[in-house]
Every structure is written in structure tokens, then in C-alpha cells.
């Protein structure tokens, strides 16, 4: 009983974190940044966009629906392409966190998959020709 209580205590203080690397700037793909454009950069706003991916975590860890940041990032990039934008600025992320303890609980209670969701928002921009070469 005591080892179980110790394990529960250790797992109760958990931090959930998630990270995805932004793609390196390339001329052929839209850029995505959580910041604005450098001062003096002229641009037109194409619109604002939000992408949300929703699914379930199976066994606490398996994510068959793709609800991680990289999947949302790919969706956002696709929306930028569809809109003819050069990139997305002031991008924000909202991700439902599951701690390690909760994921382990999910693995034990495998018959009850956890809901999982990731949302990204941002403003689609098209650089004006005079500054289009200057922002990477």
C-alpha cells in the first residue's frame, strides 16, 4: 500500500508540456510566427484564421487523430497556402494538457479514451512586393 501511495504522491505533482519546432524559413512555404512583422514591413492582411483538431488519446498516449501541435501547424500552413498568404503572424496555441499521471491513468483505463484537442489562431498576411524579399 505504501509504495502505491508514494507513487501517487510522485505522480500528483506533474507538469505537462508540449513542443513543436517551427519549420526553417523557406521561400516555397508560408512562414508562421508568434510575433508580428519587423517594424517598417509593409503588408496586407488576408484574414484571420483558426484551426482546431479534435480526437481522443487511446491508452493515454496513442494519438491516432493527430491532435498535437505539429498537426495543427500543418493545418495552419495549408490554410495560409489556400488563402494565398505569405505567412501567419501573431500565431497563438491552445492545447489541452494531459500530465504524465493522467496519461498513465488513461493507459490503465484503456476502455475510456481521453478527449484531446489543439487549436491555433493567427492572422494571414501577404507582404507587399517592396518588402517581400526582406522578411524571412
Amino acid at each position, binding site marked *: 500500500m505504501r509504495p502505491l501511495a508514494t507513487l501517487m504522491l510522485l505522480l500528483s505533482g506533474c507538469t505537462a508540456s508540449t513542443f513543436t519546432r517551427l519549420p526553417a524559413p523557406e521561400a516555397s512555404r508560408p512562414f508562421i510566427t508568434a*510575433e*508580428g*512583422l519587423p*517594424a517598417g*514591413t*509593409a*503588408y*496586407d*492582411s*488576408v*484574414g*484571420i*484564421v*483558426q*484551426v*482546431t*483538431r*479534435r*480526437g*481522443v488519446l*487511446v491508452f493515454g498516449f496513442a494519438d*491516432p*487523430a*493527430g*491532435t498535437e501541435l505539429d498537426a*495543427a501547424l500543418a*493545418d495552419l500552413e495549408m*490554410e495560409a497556402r489556400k488563402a494565398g498568404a505569405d505567412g501567419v*503572424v*501573431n500565431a*497563438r496555441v*491552445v492545447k489541452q494538457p494531459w500530465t504524465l499521471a493522467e496519461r498513465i491513468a488513461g493507459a490503465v483505463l484503456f476502455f475510456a*479514451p481521453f*478527449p484531446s484537442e489543439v*487549436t491555433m*489562431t*493567427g*492572422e494571414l498576411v501577404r507582404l507587399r512586393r517592396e518588402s517581400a524579399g526582406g522578411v524571412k
Partner: protein
Amino acid sequence: MRRALLSSLVLGLLGCSAVSKGSALSAVPSREPGMFVSTGGAPAPYVTLGFVQVRGYGVQVAGFADVGHATLDGPIRNALLAEAARMGGNGVIHVEFLDENPSTEIERAQAAANSIQNLASGRGGVEQKDRYVTVTGEVIRFEGAAR
């Protein structure tokens, strides 16, 4: 009951994405003389007048008909800009927005199918879902004629 649980699980495993879009905000430098609106900062000196939060409410009926103000454009174009003007501002910057509970394509299809099934069987009614969009922004006034 079992079929509903099973379909929920299948939908969850498949996953799906929802995309909410809004129209263009202001260009930099600004092309039009109206209110400056941006998710970023201001391109010229300004004073902060205050802060606004707007929450648009709407209802999605049978998975396909969206009524009310739960769109990205509605709260920004109407309530946010009206409030900024009332406060004496000529711009709203650092605009942040969140469609709180968008429906994925599969969820819409499921709601439509359930509604049709309910109506055909005479049990239950048309499925409705409350929808919310929240927008916040910093109301500013540009100093002098700066834009």
C-alpha cells in the same frame, strides 16, 4: 446507447479539424481611413484608451445552420469596433480571438444525421449546439495624424 458510444469512439479515433475564418484586418501602412485593426501592434505612436472583451453567442442547428453572432467577423466588425469608437479610439490592436467550440466536419455531419433520424422516427428533435466566440483587444488613439 451502445451505438452512440461506438460512433463517438470512432469519430474520436478518426479525428477531424475545424477551420474558422474571418475577413482581412488592416494593412500596414493602412490603406483605408477607418478604424485600424490588427492582431499585432500599432505602426505609429499611440495612447492606450482601454481594453475590450466581446463574446458572441450563436446556435448551430442540425449541424449546418449557424445563426447568431458566433462568427469571427461578427464580434470584431460590429461590437468590438463600435465599443472602440464609443471610447474615442481610432484603432484596436493586439486583437486576440478564439472560436471556443467549433464543430468539425464529422461532428456537423453526425448532428445533421441525428436530426434527420430523430425527425424521421418522431423521437427527439433537431440537434442544437450553443456556440461562442470571444475577442479581446486594446483600444488606442493614434497621436496626431499618425497611422
